[in-house]
């Protein structure tokens, strides 16, 4: 299992559209992937789960993955966060 602390850069935080992109991406990997935010832990493959976090800009979130492709999964998700979910130019 690996973990990574990730800063939320995009202005709107994990709102519906960003959460949809994130869960879509997570579903491409076989590993179990979780997001941990303010003591809440949710499955990154669940759109609804991500929405319940109401994670907002400027805060840190922990990405956690375990499985055969855990390394790739964490990198891809972290990259999505760092690209601000492609929503800001």
């Amino acid at each position: 299992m690996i973990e990574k602390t990730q800063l939320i850069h995009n202005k709107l935080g994990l709102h519906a559209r960003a959460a949809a992109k994130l869960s879509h991406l997570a579903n491409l990997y076989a590993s179990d992937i979780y997001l941990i935010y303010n003591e809440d832990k949710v499955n990154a493959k669940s759109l609804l789960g991500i929405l319940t976090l109401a994670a907002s800009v400027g805060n840190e979130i922990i990405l956690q993955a375990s499985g055969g492709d855990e390394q790739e999964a964490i990198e891809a998700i972290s990259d999505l966060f760092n690209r601000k979910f492609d929503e800001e130019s």
Partner: protein
Amino acid sequence: MIRIKGKAVSPGIVMGRALLYNFEKEVIRAENIGAQSVQREIWRLENAVKKSQAQLKKINLGMQKIMGKDAAFIIETQYLLLKDSHLLDEIRGAIQGKLVKAEWAIKQVEKKYLDIFHSIPDLSFKAKSNDISDVLNRLIANLKKGSPAAAAPQPGQVILVADDITPSEAATLMSNKRLLGLVLNKGGETSHTVILARTLGIPAILDTVNATDSIFSGDTLALDSINGEVIVQPTPALAEDIAARIEKFREYKEQLKNLSQLPELTLDRHQFRLYANIELPFESEIVQSYGAKGIGLFRTEFLYLDSKMSISEEEQCLIYKKIAQNIFPHPLVIRTYDLGRDKSDPAAPRREENPSLGMMAVRLFLKDREPFKIQIKAIMRANTSGNIRILFPMITEIEEIRAIKAIMAEAKKELQRAGAYPRKDVQTGIMLEIPAAVRLIRHLGNDIDFFSVGSNDLIQYLLAVDRNNSDVSYLFSPYHPAFVHILKEIRTEVDRIGKEVTICGEMAGQPIPALMLLGMGFTHFSMNALAIAEIKRVFTQIDYMRLRRIVSQLGRFGSRTEIEAFLRTELEKLYPGLLSGPNT
């Protein structure tokens, strides 16, 4: 025949058959099943999911066609929620674990998520609970055998009457053009439903409280969202009248289409400016299509109240910036929180015997400065495009301006230290709505850049009359000679110190009062966006110099009825037909 009043959303008049939409969610009871039926319930659930997905996909496509990708996202979220295997796993888990029917399992899951979403203070996540309820109720509806998709009950165009409707229901109805108009018991100006109605120009009346009690499906309704009224079963004579008004309104709209392109000049080329008052950020996206050349008053109270007073500087800054960009290069005037009084303000310190003479607006915030300073900083930071101005309500004396200026200086210093202060200062203005402030214009004007007249409050405080009290509201008149006099004083005093003044408040959007103001020399008007076209129509059809001559004679009259009658007669004489728009 019954008349029902409500809050009008997008202007128009329509007549048609009522369709009472029964949105009362079916009462669902816990119903236990035997272990042998679990598989059957799961199979029912999976079928309902498939049906729901197909329906949402269809709605989504329809929406994209008429509104573009962005608006369609409202429905897309629901579609994606249904594809979320974890949500479905949870429902399946509830069926298996508790041995209940699919309906009850869905209700349990809905309750869980509503509880979670309701505990989130963040403004932008608030609409989510609506979406989840909407999608889960669709699932429940589709569990029924052969149940048709929601919202297809009767052919032809209808005026929908409901307690409230969900975004997907609204989207379905609006996208297939079956919806002539909308009458709702509830309000919810921020709801997706209302946004859609406004964007698509579908007349709607909200806040009727109990329209669903007095209207039956099939009733003939005349919906007048200019006056905010629904007429149920109009008499034949009235129906004929209304039909004529509908025709007239259609012609009028044609005429207005061309107006928003016209320059803001009277016949004798006297320049005026028409701005919009807005309350919700999204309105900034459409006010220009109504002809607004700027936002003269953005009321920010809702940001504070909706977020349960916890809106951050960052969130506010984003909202202000977005609006400023939407309206650029025109100005955006942001009025700081005008809380207290009737605004059911949870921040009000205690029950006051006389709230309209008590803790309100700037007075509240000079006592509890933190939220005020956060707002000021957010406004300053947002001004990257340079078109933002800040406006302070309810100013009584110069000490308040000094205190505000001190807070602004602090805010600026803090932002500069953080490297977040834009190059341009925001221009600062105050509201003239307490008569004392009018008397002090030349002193107050030293430290500020512009004034804004809140005509409703100024009348209320000058005439000691509450316009919401029906026993005395007849006194509330923009033609009261004392008020006319104070308007002239404002014009003279502001001219003397060479500052700018905008008239906000209802009278700016009413043709005769607005013409009176124009004749007094006022040039900047800010009003409900829906009134702009009509004001532009009358302003572009008159000569300023002739209007001035009429208005200069008002000093002769000592009575409001005489003033009103005089203005009306003189205007009719000079410009026959000018005052025959649907608003006059």
